[in-house]
């Protein structure tokens, strides 16, 4: 058997995005993937070596990064995990021969800005703790470059896929319960939906990008044909049979978000403090999502298309990829 040429550590390789990245790395002849994860569950991709690594633990990171050619950071969690994790990964990489870092960021670093957003658009820290943490994490990666390291930052929009907890699973739950549907003007923002397969494709292709010493490149990731939120909700709802799709007024969705969403968040927070999982709680629509559903922000992914040579999954394929037992998507959607 031919020996593999480069070794790639996928931090967060046990999660939704990390899993897909590992799967795609396994298809590459010259790559040996290695999973780094805080918990080693049965979700781990079979046939791939896995290490227990907490990304907020420098020692574990240093061990994991030994003899690694590249590290892909798709760890997520609370603000500390995101920010401190990125800082420590960069620190450990600096101490371990400066491997290339591929860092998964988010469109939330652009904050509440509107219009067509390219990678040159200045960041804006006005979206709460998540955006703030993601910006701080990017700064750590930029500093890694300033210290002579090479890195690629990927800024995906909303990542969909049948295991996507945020942009597929909970949306499907809300569609089935009639809490989401066609929102009219309240759902008129661009979804910037991107298939997890395309995010993984970008991460794997980033491995082959030649970078000068100290160079950090940034790519937006949003399917060029990603629709506005209303279209996404209607098409997904029709695809899963949550029909007829309901038209939901601005008044109704606000009532849901503020009267139900906020109290649920508070209860969740209290239970978390006392280390009790509150999975039985209903999913209220958080008010922050209402702002996102209206936000006229369109990520420009031209750079990823041209420089990474991404072959995007068309929208109707992306929809099919989200449905657990895939019924046929009506032709009218495409």
């Amino acid at each position, binding site marked *: 058997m031919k020996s593999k040429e480069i070794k790639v550590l996928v931090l967060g390789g046990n999660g939704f995005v990390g899993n897909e990245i590992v799967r795609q790395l396994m298809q590459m002849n010259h790559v040996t993937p290695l999973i780094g994860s805080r918990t080693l569950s049965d979700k781990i991709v079979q046939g791939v070596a896995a290490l227990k690594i907490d990304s907020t633990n420098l020692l574990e990171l240093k061990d994991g990064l030994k003899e690694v050619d590249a590290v892909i950071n798709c760890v997520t969690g609370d603000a500390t995990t995101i920010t401190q994790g990125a800082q420590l990964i960069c620190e450990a990489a600096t101490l371990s021969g400066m491997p290339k870092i591929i860092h998964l960021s988010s469109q939330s670093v652009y904050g509440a800005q509107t219009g067509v957003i390219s990678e040159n658009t200045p960041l804006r820290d006005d979206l709460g703790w998540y955006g703030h943490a993601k910006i701080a994490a990017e700064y750590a990666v930029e500093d890694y470059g300033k210290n002579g390291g090479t890195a690629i930052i990927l800024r995906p929009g909303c990542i969909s896929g049948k295991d996507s907890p945020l942009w597929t699973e909970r949306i499907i739950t809300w569609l089935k319960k009639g809490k989401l549907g066609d929102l*009219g003007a309240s759902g008129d923002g661009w979804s910037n939906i991107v298939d997890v397969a395309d995010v993984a494709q970008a991460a794997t292709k980033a491995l082959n990008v030649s970078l000068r010493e100290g160079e950090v490149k940034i790519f937006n990731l949003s399917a060029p044909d990603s629709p506005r939120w209303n279209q996404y909700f209607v098409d997904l709802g029709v695809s899963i049979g949550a029909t007829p799709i309901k038209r939901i007024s601005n008044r109704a969705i606000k009532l849901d978000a503020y009267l139900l969403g906020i109290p649920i968040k508070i209860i969740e927070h209290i239970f978390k403090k006392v280390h009790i999982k509150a999975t039985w709680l209903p999913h209220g629509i958080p008010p922050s999502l209402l702002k996102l559903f209206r936000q006229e922000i369109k990520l420009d992914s031209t750079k990823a298309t041209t420089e990474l040579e991404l072959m995007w999954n068309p929208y109707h394929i992306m929809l099919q990829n989200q449905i657990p037992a895939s019924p046929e998507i009506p032709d009218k959607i495409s």
Partner: protein
Amino acid sequence: MIKSGNSIAHNIVIETDICIVGAGAAGIPMALEFEQTITKVLLLESGDFKEEKETQDLYSGSVSNKTMHSPPDKYRQRRFGGSTTIWGGRCVPFDPIDFERRSYIPQSGWPINVDDLADFYPKANSYLEAGYYCYDARNAFNPVPKPMFEGFTSSAFSTDGIERFSCPTDLGKRYRNRFAQSSNIDLLLNANVIAIELNNPGTEVDFLQVATLNGNAFKVKAKSYILAMGGIETTRLMLVSNNIHKNGIGNHNDILGRFYMCHIAGNVGRLKINGTTSKVQHGYEISPEGIYCRRRIQLTAEKQKELGVSNMVARLHFPKITDPSHKSGILSGLFMAKNFVSYEYGKRLKDDEENTLKLKAKHFLNILTDPFNTFKFLLHWLTKRTLAERKFPSVILPNESNQFSLEVHAEQIPNKNSRIYLTSEKDALNMPKINVDWQYLTEDVEAVKKTLKFFSEEIAKDEIGNFEFDADNLETELMRFGAYGGHHIGTTRMGDNPETSIVNKDCRVHGVSNLYVASSSVFPTSSQANPTLTITAIALRLAAHMKTMK
């Protein structure tokens, strides 16, 4: 960005790439097509976000025959969103035959065909929030529903065509946020275009004169100008702008303002279907995307050609509302509430019968003796229409007897004598007002008569029931309320020949290199379909055309 014309410095010249006049079913989608481009678009709107009497009065004018056409300030709204602020929401595409030159219909034939709109109808459907672009009941629903009439085998009539209903969406309210957030599309409210100024040979628009009701005035200079002010107002502005072209812009052959069409409409006859009520699908069906849809009865294109008749559709309708013998508490309730219904929808409830105390008492008795159905109806109306954002489109009664009248909506044959023209009376901005002289032809009524007679034969042939109507009295029934309100078609007709039309197939005014029209006024024929969906589609086609220009 959104601004008011009153905030613009007096007498300045605003420069832009494309200036669109009128923010309604054509202007709003067209402007939004330039989102995320480098093209600078200025959308001028006479009104504000809400109706204002002084602005609405700018629409006032006269009609030659008040029983045949509504006053010009009715069915039209001079404000952001235009007449989509009051429309009923019915969406139907034109049929392929509508675009054809038909030997039996003089002046028929478009310089484009239905395929030229194929890319734009689905997008128009989306802007108008009418769901997926599918107008065939056999594909629109899941599972496939029952046929409209069980046992109806006629190959000459289609009953699978559907109409889809928008919310009805007020485009101003729906898309206001996009304008507010756009960096290259400016919306200017309270800005009335009072003249189109051409260069001296009359081959190009030099600038637009704009005025506000508060006395401000300024100019707009653009590379291209698009008039999207509706089927009457666009024509009025072109007639008024007669400095260079003495009879109005592009009007070298007395075509501008002529061939004015609406639709021929009315409730006719009595259709009785045999057997149980389950054999008839008479009401609204809901598509998977949540859109209210309804079937229509329509003669096929082949049979239309064979019979030499213009296009028309018929929907199943309830009995005559003013006649209390229907015993329906719901209909009597509607009759009693007619004065609380808006002009646009109340008109056809009023009929022409004398509103006596005795008549009112009979209707009141109907309400008292049919309380359960009346309450059920009111509750449904409250929850599914009054309070709902996607509104139940119209009154549908439970089918208890398999008896209906047919609600006819028919094409009007182009007629040069049917026209709008300027009068000597002026509005608050010193612009001449218009007079509407709507006329129909005997052939319009004859076409409906032929189609209905043939329908009657086809129903009888299958022995599923019978359809009877008073052929001698058909003209009276169809003209009881005159022209179908709100559909203003044909006064800047599209064609290849400048001698018989005003705009070419790209909606550009013949002989004027940078002036376009996006309105139902460019339709050379009126189809059976309500015009809004096609207005939006044709506007989107024009926007695509503008994008290809340097």
